[in-house]
């Protein structure tokens, strides 16, 4: 798949951790303001691929990354790049919510505070806006100073999404973001992804095919560290071209 103005452009990416060659010669383009899902069996490298986009992969020990990842045309593996600047562009929603050890308010305010010194008044507005964005405002407006860990898991995950959005990213990376959630909270998060793609490019890693079908515009199928097939969601799920994709979609390989 190629796009006129891809948001992320991955060129010849290889990732090795120790002696394991996790990702092999990845060349893909991620479209702007669409939901792109990365699917594939456990251990295929889909989370690793996601982590190369915001360079969280750097923290893995013994890791070696070669190739280019261009975000807005800028190679994020350029040694001169400011890494915090790259990460500010992307909100991360991990498998389980990890609220920062502080209040609900401070969780949202954390990002804006490290990236500048916003006025209290602006921060109040921003916190309310972001909490409304994820439909959490009505639930928490009376206890903004309570520790974030007191919220339910589903609420915490929405808080983490709002926390990421408060930094003003261009993109949301979701790493099996609903795997710890109950069906109702899962639906809320999925609906949010669909609303948010108006403003953000969204990349999701998921192993739930039905979720990929519900939210994605495009799907990338990864198997054993290689991109097997990449196309519009409908096509990948209903009419896959590659034998491996067919088998995976039918549930023969998991």
């Amino acid at each position: 798949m190629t796009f006129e103005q891809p948001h992320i452009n991955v060129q010849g990416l290889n990732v090795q951790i120790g002696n394991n060659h996790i990702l092999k010669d990845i060349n893909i383009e991620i479209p702007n303001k669409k939901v792109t899902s990365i699917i594939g069996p456990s251990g295929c490298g889909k989370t690793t691929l996601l982590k190369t986009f915001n360079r969280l992969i750097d923290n893995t020990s013994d890791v070696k990354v070669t190739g280019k990842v261009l975000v807005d045309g800028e190679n994020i593996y350029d040694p001169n790049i400011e890494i915090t600047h790259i990460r500010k562009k992307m909100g991360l929603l991990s498998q389980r919510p990890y609220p920062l050890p502080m209040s609900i308010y401070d969780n949202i305010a954390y990002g804006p505070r490290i990236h500048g010194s916003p006025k209290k008044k602006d921060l109040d507005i921003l916190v309310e806006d972001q909490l409304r964005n994820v439909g959490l405002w009505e639930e928490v407006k009376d206890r903004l100073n309570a520790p974030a860990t007191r919220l339910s898991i589903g609420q915490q995950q929405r808080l983490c999404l709002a926390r990421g959005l408060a930094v003003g990213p261009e993109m949301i990376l979701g790493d099996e973001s609903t795997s710890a959630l109950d069906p109702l909270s899962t639906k809320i998060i999925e609906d949010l992804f669909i609303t948010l793609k108006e403003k953000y490019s969204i990349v999701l890693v998921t192993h739930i095919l039905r979720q990929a079908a519900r939210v994605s515009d495009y799907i990338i199928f990864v198997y054993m560290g290689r991109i097997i097939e990449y196309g519009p969601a409908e096509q990948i799920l209903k009419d896959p071209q590659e034998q491996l994709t067919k088998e995976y979609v039918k549930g023969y390989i998991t």
Partner: protein
Amino acid sequence: MTRRKLEEQFFKLLMILATILVSGSFFLIVGTIFYKGVPYMNWDMISKTPGGGFYIGKEGGVLNAIIGSMYIAGGATILGLFISIPVAIFINMYMDGKKFLLDTLRMVFDVLFGIPSIVYGAFGFLLMIYFGVRASLLGGIIAVTLLVIPILVRTLDEVIRTVPGELRDAALALGSTRWETAKVVLRAIKPGIYTAVLLSFGRAIGDVASVLFTAGFSDNIPTSLHEPAATLPLAIFFQLGSPVAEVQGRGYASALILTIVVLVITLLSELLLKRSYKNKI
């Protein structure tokens, strides 16, 4: 069948006996100190410094040693914390991928942890001679700081390792620098820091060998860092060595004071440790 049953019974009995021996000796020790110390325990003991004839059984107390011990243990713990927190943060947050160096460092801390306190005392003493410092509160604090740093580093290291990597990733993904991420981690381990402080304080206040040549001993409460300072363990040692029954009794009373201080600190640290696990994210 019966042989296996017999074997089971025999080893079970052995285990019970060993457990009784260990827990029994705890009560025996604490009991002895209470039994021997309580009769000599009075308000003077904890509110007065030794009077003129204290060591031949006349009036006074061990306030000098109580204060001296508090100063040294407190000072060493605070000083140790300022050195240990950066070390613990550094080895956990800035040494990704340097596994060999990290393992070596951790081993070094383990070895330091196991070094007998007299060695720290002797080393502290050498430092003092080199810098021309006499036995003093400062000398004691420095020697005990050396002693508690490995305890603090090891405890903090353990606590930081309980913080899920995903929490760090979350902070980093928001665009935090490593130091900003470290501050988030420090917030997450706050109860663990209290625990480390109490562990270190408990060890520092009970140690005698490290202060033996470094802090000296004095009947007065030190008013500056350069004056010698008494410590409870040394006070106990001197009093028990006396031939006068009254003074020996007061030695046990001093031991009682020290035990109570350590007991309170241990209980507090247990409590905080439990809380820190409960609040773990």
